[in-house]
């Protein structure tokens, strides 16, 4: 595997911990270079591999189960009618 410089390195040269790298990925803050680096990192870091898969599964489950669908049908018309009555 080619050795590439760590794109997670901070400006002060501080090396991030596994947890910090994983959090950037989970929080949607990682760049594509950082994501690629982390994928390679997981090949030789079993705790990161396990934690990443668990965290991503939770994230998917949240999206699938907690997004709630549609708002009540009458809500839009109620808002519109209040706005129209206040405008007149």
């Amino acid at each position, binding site marked *: 595997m080619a050795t590439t410089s760590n794109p997670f390195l901070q400006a002060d040269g501080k090396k991030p*911990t*596994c*947890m910090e790298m994983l*959090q950037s990925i*989970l*929080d*949607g*803050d990682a760049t594509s270079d950082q994501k690629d680096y982390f994928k390679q990192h997981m090949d030789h870091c079993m*705790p990161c591999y*396990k*934690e990443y*898969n*668990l*965290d991503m*599964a*939770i*994230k998917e*489950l*949240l*999206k699938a*189960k*907690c*997004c*709630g*669908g*549609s*708002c*009540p049908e009458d*809500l*839009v018309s*109620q*808002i519109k009618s*209040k*706005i129209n009555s*206040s*405008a007149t």
Partner: protein
Amino acid sequence: MEFEDAPRQHYSEKEKQEVFDGEFMPHIHSMYNFGYRLTLDRDDAKDLVQDTYLKAFRFIESFQKGTNAKAWLFRILKNSFINDYRKKSKEPSKVDYQEIETYYNSEEVDRQITPDLRVESLKDMIGDEISNALNSLDVDFRTVIILCDLEGFKYEEMAKILDIPIGTVRSRLHRARNLLKEKLKSYAQSMGYNKA
């Protein structure tokens, strides 16, 4: 009510309607879900969303057309929740942020928090377990999970919506994820998984 330091806009009545219908209304389902996840009550969520949209219309000239309407609306809803709803209903939640910062910065953060929660056990959570686990979190922790994982907001957007520094967004998310995992671990154990 300003979100950015944008100059006050001047819209005609027609333009106001266009901004409202074209930029605000498309987010109503996400807004309702956010309201419901904050209040945990469908009628309260409806009132909160209605109130938010009326405020958004009233302050529409603070909003610059074509900018981040969703974040702006989420911020108004969050503020309405804190100022109007939360005050009426109960004591604001108290979170020991000092404790969180200490926790986040400690050497122990790299240990695995929930070594015995497995992906396989999550696959059997096809009912309300995840929703109940999310709802059981303190509202400040619940909020960052909703904003990040359900709505896909970035750190900077969350910082503006919540009026907190980006570092606090990060540490709160970190703590929220661990608390959520603890809840899910309890569900997994109650379903017969992960027995030692």
